[in-house]
């Protein structure tokens, strides 16, 4: 049979020579490889202090956007939940009352919006499906946690702040 690559080695059970039987050449060769790595660039970074450069369109933790007036854009239409292949998103909608126009953009809003981060595969289909440009994935990493309940992110963790300082810039994702 023709080999798939030229890296295959034919195995034989021939007897070792005296030099091979002492294992010393192989040990020295292995040490040489190890020592050569002292002078090469390390493959890892020292994570919390040092961070790798992220792609502009990295898909991390979600954000629920507010519009320019600070009203939530999400109308709980359910398209993110229906497109989600991991079924990580659930929501309960409610009707906007009089006097809440500054809080919610449309007459319907998500009273409860939850993403189970243990289920989420960060595929970005939810932001793809969103007709209101309400949900986006950010560069932020969803942190590790101890309890399962803490991985279910509600609106308190997902909705961005009203103040200009707390807004999350997603313009790079919109430009695509």
């Amino acid at each position: 049979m023709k080999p798939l690559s030229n890296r295959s080695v034919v195995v034989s059970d021939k007897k070792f020579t005296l030099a091979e039987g002492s294992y010393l050449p192989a040990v020295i060769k292995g040490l040489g490889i190890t020592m050569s790595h002292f002078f090469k660039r390390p493959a890892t970074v020292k994570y919390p202090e040092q961070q790798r450069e992220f792609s502009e369109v990295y898909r991390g933790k979600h954000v629920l956007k507010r519009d320019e007036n600070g009203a939530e854009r999400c109308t709980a239409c359910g398209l993110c939940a229906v497109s989600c292949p991991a079924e990580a998103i659930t929501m309960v909608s409610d009707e906007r009352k009089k006097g809440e126009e500054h809080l919610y953009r449309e007459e319907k809003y998500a009273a409860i919006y939850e993403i189970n981060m243990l289920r989420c595969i960060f595929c970005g289909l939810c932001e793809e499906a969103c007709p209101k440009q309400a949900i986006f994935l950010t560069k932020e990493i969803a942190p590790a946690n101890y309890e399962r309940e803490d991985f279910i992110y509600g609106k308190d963790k997902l909705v961005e702040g009203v103040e200009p300082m707390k807004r999350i810039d997603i313009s790079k994702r919109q430009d695509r």
Partner: protein
Amino acid sequence: MSLLKVTIDNKTIEVEPGTTILQAARMIGPDVAPPAMCYYTKLKTSGGYCRTCLVKVSKGSEKDPRPMPKLVASCRTTVMDGMEVENFTSPEVVDARNGVVEFLLLNHPLDCPICDQAGECHLQDLSYENGKSKTRNEFERRTFEKIDIGDKIQLHMTRCILCYRCVKVADQFTPERVHGVINRGEVSEISTYIQHAVDNDFSGNMIDVCPVGALTDKTFRFKSRVWFLKPVDAHRNCDKCSGKTVLWKYGQEIYRITGRKDQWGEVEEFICNTCRFDKKAPSDWTEEGPRKLSRHSVISQGHYGTKTKFVASPVTLPNKQLS
């Protein structure tokens, strides 16, 4: 009387005299049946308003083989012997239908993310198949205040496409006429005339016949999206109607109740308001089983088969504290 032979999109069928082209096409099957927004089999004199069912008659009949000069509304045109009709095979028809959809969408707001009808909306399906993604209309869409028709039905006149189906329901199921279309042309609107409440036992059926989200169930308003619910056929003994309905369930909770719709989106049997609005406890109903859905329907999303093929045998855990 002898049967009439009619050919629609190269498929031939023999039908009774007096059958319309649309009915004949539906007898052949969904491949050739033109879409219809206003025509409703069970409502007399419905049809002829929306023009989505336009077809081309390329041969009038055996005796007079001349083609009809213009596209005709198939819901209002009866078949003749030897008639040949082109529907999806004619580019002219497809083009005309695209134009009709554009007209229907002139004033229709694109608030599908909010609308309770989304997912089972005929206009949504129609515009998905025939519509353009952009409107050429440069003017403001007409808007109306929301109106309550009775305490269970809400009218979003903004979304209405004036198909008159609900008016026919009110006309044909109620003793006195309390609901109609007022004004003319672009400013016409369906109304109960000075907010006169429709409190007939069968008024809820106007929700089912509405092809768009203009008439919606207030008891279901913003409760859920239709594709998150599981439709289940059910019945109960009702002294007013047949009691055969579809329950839209989320878990064990019944979110709303509608009539059973056939493959053309038409209600099989009209149901009364008691069944529709007041009987939301699971104990009121005898369930018959999950409703058959088209695999491509958004409503069948996430509904995996009901049969469990493999049931794990109970495993006896060793006496070990897990926590």
